[in-house]
């Protein structure tokens, strides 16, 4: 029985079948891998660089960063506060039409945050801002339109990267190093 199967597989047809199966498996795996690396679809293709170019401070829309753990996503009301002054909202091809739609329908905009740390990391924006870190240190240069979109964060947040900066920041200060390299500082 097994021998017959093996014999069949040794034929050209069998070899082709095996080849196809292997290829299919391989491409499936590759596709699976590929999908995990794709940036998410966003409800609005929000151009950070444009807003930065207008000179809007990061903290205007994300005030939480200076005050607490989470920077926060601005409310619709905040978006609309400026954008209802801008006539472009009537342009049917503008990205803004989505905002108009959300505001008119009173539905929330379902953003997909891209700058995320894993759940087991307790990240606090305030401490980092207070320590003199600039937003672009972690989130990239928002003014550079090639570098930052709302679909990707240029920096992959992993522990080595965090720790490197922590140790650099601590410098020769031993007490600071202890605090900044303590597992319990971020994981609890």
């Amino acid at each position, binding site marked *: 029985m097994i021998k017959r199967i093996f014999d069949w597989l040794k034929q050209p047809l069998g070899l082709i079948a095996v080849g196809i199966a292997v290829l299919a498996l391989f491409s499936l795996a590759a596709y699976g891998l590929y*999908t*995990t690396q794709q940036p998410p679809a966003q409800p609005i293709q929000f151009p950070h660089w444009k807003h930065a170019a207008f000179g809007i401070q990061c903290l205007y829309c994300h005030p939480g960063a200076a005050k607490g*753990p*989470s920077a*926060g996503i601005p409310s*619709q009301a905040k978006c609309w506060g400026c954008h209802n002054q801008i006539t472009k909202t009537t342009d049917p091809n503008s990205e803004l039409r989505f905002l108009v739609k959300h505001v008119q329908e009173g539905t929330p905009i*379902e953003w997909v945050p891209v700058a995320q740390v*894993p*759940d087991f990391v307790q990240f606090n924006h305030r401490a980092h801002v207070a320590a003199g870190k600039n937003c672009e240190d972690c989130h990239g240069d928002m003014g550079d339109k090639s570098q930052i979109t709302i679909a990707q964060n240029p920096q992959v947040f992993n522990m080595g990267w965090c720790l490197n900066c922590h140790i650099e920041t601590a410098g020769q200060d031993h007490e600071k190093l202890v605090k900044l390299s303590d597992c319990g500082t971020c994981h609890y």
Partner: protein
Amino acid sequence: MSKQFSRRDFLKLAGVGAATTAILTGCGPASRYVKREPYMQMPEYTYNGQSTYYATTCRECAAGCGLIVRTSQGRAIKTEGNANNPLNLGKTCARGQATLQGLYNPDRVTDPIKRSSRGGDSTAVMDWDASIQVVADALKNNKPEEIAFLMGMAPDHIFDLVTDLANATGMNAPMRFGALGMFEARATLSKAAENLFGQASLPFFDVGGAQVVFSFGANFLETWLSPVSYTRGFAGLREARTKLRGKFVQFESRMSSTGGKADEWIPLRPGTEALVALAIGRLAAEIRGGAMPRAFASVDPKDAATKSGIKLETLEHLAEMFANSTGALAIPGGAALGQSNGLAVAEAVLALNAFSDNLGKPGGVYLSALAPNQTEYNRPASAREMQALVQKMFDGKIKVLFVHGVNPLFELPNSLEFGGASKYVSQIISFATFPDETAREADYVFPDHHGLESWGYQRVATGSAQPVLSGAQPVVSPYYNTRATADVLITAAQLAGGKFAEALPFKDEVEFLQSKIASLMSEADGSISALDIPTFMAYFQQHGGYWKMSDGRGVPSAEDMLNRTIAADEAEFAGEGEFFFVPFVSPTLAEAGANKPWLQELADPTTTVMWNTWVEMNPETAHELGIENDDVVKIVSEAGALEAPVYVYPAIRPDTIAMPFGQGHTAYGRYATDVDKDGNIIPRGVNPADLFGQHFNEAGDLAFAGMKVKIEKTGVKKPLSRLESLMGVYGIGLGEEH
């Protein structure tokens, strides 16, 4: 309510919960992506990631403890005690902590429903307009005297609202009932206060200020009246930092977790509490010398010792302790009052206090302060009054029954036949938040908000020196399509028109509340004051209520208290059988905690059993009967029979068995019930109330502890889930001793 509330405009952050559970390992970035909905209108005092704290009132029992609820992004995260509230001073009990598991319970009633047949599973979802019309029709189309409201002991504002409605229209006055009130024998306490002090009131016992505390069955560290406040009092009694460590003696036939903390635990024969109290009084009076008070004169200590099973020396030693103490306090309560002679027990024990001359003094007995907007003490219905209601239902005198905040089919003993009587009521409308047994038997369920989603107030009946009105406000927006019962009633009354509309001339619940607290606005000595009602209401919400800054407790008059005879008869016990039956309220679950999984998983303080009902039995008795731990026994009383596994309990009289109340639900969500092998819903544990007969004490409270029962072995084993180790704690299964 909608107007004020909509301003908050909370939005749930969809998927945040999923995200927290999703990834610990972390695969690719895509698996981490979640959608986040920002606020559409961010409340100005909110920052993302920062918590907002709201003051409100706990609704897990009627005590009225103030809570501060931590909310984050529109979700309630944690309840903490309100440190400003004079009743609980920032503390909570386990049930207060677990109230969030009620709020986010997966088994809540999500929409108003109409049931096609009572007790059936088939329901139709209604919209609120139609629901309110149903209520309006029920009010309008029946004679007022055919409409009855049955309510729980909390919250008070709906009770006030219905009372106003009833007063204006001639409806039956709303009845309030709760199993806790029944087990606390509140009617007996208040009746005794009336008899002795001339004023119906809940006595307040200042445990913290006392030097010696004698408690006759009062389980004041568990569920009794105001457990958080009494526990604080107990800590004060024991606090070695500030004064001499106070002594505590507990008289009861089965060691409760309160009794476990006692320096001396006196296992007296059930029914002899009055006798023992009077005997101690007599012996103490003899020690002190002087004229023998009439109240104690007729009792013979030797006889009391024989009857109660306490050694005479013990009685003498206790009397000495009582007589020689500068601050001796005696507390009646619990199972001691739930007997045929309960009123006599309460009087005898209060007489001890008169003898100790502590009335109205620190470490003594007070009359509880009336809440700020209260003129007289309003006790819940006694079981006899409930029996009268049931009788009325049987007689067809009640056409519509509204049920709110109480689950009579579970909390009332079976023998009162509420279930049978409800068949004679043509329409039952339940406002239950949870699909409990009564809601299952109702024609309509118009779910009220959970306590944390509701407005309201609760009067603090006892436990605080200051008069306190604890205020409640929604801390989160309603999770389901529920509606405040007060709003439903106000709208329905207006639809019904006539006297109904006149009785409730309010726009919504908040306006009604404002009308109820408006009079406090300018009162002197208040914790808050304001010039206009919106500001006052805002302060009221912000501080979690309103309280007076001074002591509002009444001083009972001691006149003639000792100069009267008190019946020292033993209690009568109903039923055949060799065992006294002592039911007690589960300290962790109480009457309505069974649907909260973490309360189920809390170990009982005395037995450490979780998730089930047990029968406590003395090791000697168990040995004689050939019963071991986890053997299921059948308990037969005159009113019914139950089967439950045995817990061989070292601290119970050999002639007594005890059982906790709180389990045995046939409905009430997945955590309160169990499933058998075939997936059918079966009760989790049993309800000892099924064993209670129709016997009352003089004050009308149910003589729930006045029973004798038989025990039959079944040969079945049901292992109890215990936190403790049978090996380590009892040495069972460790092997023979050397």
